[in-house]
C-alpha cells in the first residue's frame, strides 16, 4: 500500500513537470504569434524603439534558448531567483517562485497564497453541500422510483444543471442580502480569524455552486443506486434479515459510491481556478478572480502561475482518487 502510494506520487511529479513544460512552452510561443514582445506581457509597456525592446528582453532572459528559460523558471520554483524588470533594483523572489507580477510588484506565489484559501474554502464547503444533497436526493429518488419525490427531484435537478451561477448567485444575494437582510456585510476573512464571519460570507457562494453540482450528483447517484439495488448481493443482504436502512446504506449506497468517488475527485480539483463566476458574483478574491484580473490586464506571470497551480491540483486529485479507490473497492489491486 505504501509502495503504491509512493509510486503514484512519483508518477504525479512526472506529470506535473510535463504539464509545467507544456504550459511554459505555450506561454512562450504565444507572444511569437501575436508579434508582441513577451516583455510586454511582463511589464505592460515596452520602449518605443527596437533596441530598447531588445535590451528589455535580454534582461528578462527572453533571448536565451527556451530550455534554458524553462530551467531558470524551474530553478526559481525550487530555489527562488532574482527578478529584474530593468527599471528597479533586482528583487529577490523566494522559492517557490512562480514568477513575479511587475504590474502589482508582488511575487505570484504571494498572490496565490492569498487567493488559495478563499478558493479552497469555497470548493470544500460547496463540495460538502453538494455531496450531502446529491447523495441524499439521488438515493431517495432511486428507492422511490416514479414517486412524486423522484419526479420533482429529478425535474429540479435538470433545471439546476441548466441554471448558471450568474443567475442563481445574484438571485441568492438579492433575496438574503438585499431583501431579507439575513446575510449582510459580506467580506471574506480567514476561518482562523473569525469563523462566524467566514461562514456568513461563504454560505451563499456555497449554495450557488453546490446547487449546480448537487443536481448532477443526484442524477448520478440515482442511476447508480438503481443499478446496485437490483444486484444479487442486495437480495442476499435482505435474505439475511437486515434492516432496510442497513440494506440501503451499508450494502447499496456503499457500492453505488465507487464511480462517484472518481468523478468527485476530478470535479473538486477542477474547481481550483475555475470558480471565476462564483468568485466574481460574490466578490471573493480567490484564484478565479485573480486569474480573470490577470487575463484582463495581460499579466502573464500570474496567468502562468495560476495555470500551473490548477494543473497540480488536478494531478494531486487524481492520485488521491486512485488511492481512495483501493480503499473503496478492494478488488482494485495495488500493483
Amino acid at each position: 500500500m505504501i509502495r503504491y502510494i509512493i509510486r503514484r506520487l512519483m508518477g504525479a511529479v512526472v506529470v506535473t513537470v510535463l504539464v509545467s513544460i507544456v504550459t511554459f512552452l505555450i506561454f512562450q510561443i504565444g507572444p511569437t504569434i501575436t508579434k508582441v514582445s513577451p516583455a510586454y506581457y511582463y511589464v505592460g509597456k515596452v520602449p518605443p524603439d527596437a533596441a530598447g525592446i531588445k535590451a528589455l528582453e535580454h534582461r528578462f532572459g527572453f533571448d536565451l534558448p527556451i530550455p534554458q528559460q524553462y530551467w531558470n523558471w524551474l530553478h526559481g520554483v525550487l530555489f527562488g531567483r532574482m527578478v529584474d524588470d530593468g527599471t528597479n533594483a533586482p528583487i529577490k523572489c523566494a522559492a517557490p517562485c512562480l514568477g513575479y507580477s511587475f504590474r502589482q510588484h508582488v511575487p505570484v506565489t504571494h498572490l496565490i497564497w492569498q487567493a488559495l484559501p478563499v478558493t479552497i474554502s469555497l470548493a470544500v464547503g460547496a463540495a460538502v453541500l453538494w455531496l450531502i444533497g446529491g447523495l441524499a436526493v439521488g438515493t431517495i429518488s432511486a428507492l422511490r422510483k416514479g414517486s412524486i419525490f423522484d419526479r420533482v427531484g429529478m425535474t429540479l435537478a435538470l433545471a439546476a444543471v441548466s441554471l448558471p451561477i450568474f443567475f442563481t448567485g445574484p438571485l441568492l444575494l438579492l433575496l438574503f442580502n438585499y431583501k431579507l437582510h439575513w446575510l449582510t456585510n459580506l467580506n471574506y476573512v480567514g476561518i482562523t480569524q473569525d469563523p462566524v464571519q467566514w461562514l456568513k460570507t461563504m454560505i451563499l457562494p456555497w449554495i450557488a455552486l453546490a446547487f449546480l453540482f448537487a443536481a448532477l450528483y443526484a442524477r448520478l447517484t440515482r442511476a447508480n443506486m438503481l443499478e446496485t439495488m437490483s444486484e444479487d448481493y442486495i437480495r442476499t443482504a435482505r435474505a439475511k434479515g437486515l434492516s432496510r436502512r442497513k440494506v440501503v446504506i451499508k450494502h447499496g449506497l456503499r457500492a453505488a459510491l465507487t464511480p462517484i468517488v472518481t468523478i468527485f475527485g476530478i470535479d473538486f480539483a477542477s474547481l481550483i481556478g475555475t470558480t471565476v463566476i462564483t468568485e466574481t458574483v460574490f466578490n471573493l478574491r480567490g484564484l478565479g478572480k485573480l486569474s480573470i484580473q490577470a487575463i484582463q490586464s495581460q499579466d502573464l506571470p500570474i496567468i502562468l502561475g495560476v495555470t500551473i497551480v490548477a494543473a497540480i491540483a488536478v494531478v494531486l486529485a487524481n492520485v488521491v482518487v486512485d488511492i481512495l479507490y483501493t480503499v473503496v473497492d478492494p478488488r482494485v489491486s495495488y500493483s
Partner: protein
Amino acid sequence: MAQDITAEQGPDSSAYLSVRDLRVHFPTGDGLVKSVDGLSFDVERGKILGIVGESGSGKSVTSQAILGLHKGSQAQITGEIWLDGQELVGASEDKMRTLRGDKMAMIFQDPLSAMHPFYKIGPQIAEAYLVHNKVSKSAAKKRVIEMLDRVGIPNPDKRYNDYPHQFSGGMRQRAMIAMALVCDPKLLIADEPTTALDVTVQAQILELMKDLQREFNSAIILITHDLGVVAETCDSVVVMYGGQCVETGAVDDIFYHPEMPYAWGLLTSMPRMDRTRQERLLPIPGQPPSLIQVPRGCVFNPRCQFKDRVGGDSCTTVRPDLLPTPGGSAGHKVRCHIHPDERARIFTDEIQPSL
C-alpha cells in the same frame, strides 16, 4: 378457475413449511405476469424437496415469495405460506425480517454476485449472525470461523478476512452455505446452488448440503433445472411449468412412473450415463409459455404431443386439476387430462424405451 384439491386443506401439521395455493402476480406495462399461479406443497424437517422446471417456470419467484423478498415491490401475492405454524403471506415486513436468515435462509445461484464485493467474507457472514443474536462481535467471529470450518474451508481463521473475489467458486458457495446456516435455520432454500459451479465441485457442494441437512435436521427446498441433482439428493419433487405444479410426488415416482407429458419430456431430454446411449437427446418442442397470456386449458397444451389422446377439446379449454394418480403411491399427483390408464400405457409403450 379450477382449484387444487389441496387448497382447501389446512396446513399439514407435520410439515415445517406448507405452501397453499400460492399466487405471485406482477403487474407490468404489458399485462399481469402470473409467475406463480396456484402452487401448493409441503416440506417436513429432515426432508429435501426438489422444485424442477425450466427458466421462467416460477421456481425462483416461489422461493423469494417464501422469504418475503417480494414485499415492498409491485408483486401481488395471495394464498398461504405456513412456516412452523406462522402464516407468512400476510406477515409484515418487520415480522419477515426477524424470520429471514434466522428460521429460514437461502443459498443463491451465483455466489460471486450474491456476496457483496466490497466486504470481507467473514464479516458478511457475521453480519447475518449478529442481526438475530445478541452477542459480541468476537463471539460472532468465533461462530463464523466454526461455520467456515464446518463447510470445509481450510484455514478458516485466515480466510475470514478474504474478500469474495479471493475465493474460488466452490469456496464461495461453501461460504454462502455457511452464511445461510450460521443462525441454524430450520428451512433452507437453495436456489440453483450448483448451477454456477464446475461439475466436480457440484458433487461436493451437494454432498455437503446433504451432510449438513442430516446434522441440523432442517427442511430443504432445492430449486434446480438439473434432474440429475434431483435424483441424487431429493426425497420428493415438484415439477413446475408455467407457474403451476404439473406433477408432484416422491422422487422415485417422478423418475420411474412419471405421468405428465412434460415430465416425460424432461426425462427424455436428460443425458443419462446409466442407460444405453441414444443417437440424440429428445428436446421438448416449442417455447415455454408466456406468463402474461397463459395458455387456456392445460398450460402445457401448446407443446404437448399427446393431447390427441384426450377426447374433445378439454386440453385447450379446461385447466386440469392436480389429482392423485389412481393406484399410484401416496402424494403422487398429476395435472393432466389424459386418462390414467392411457397415461400408463403411453409411458410403458412410448416413453420408457427411449429413456
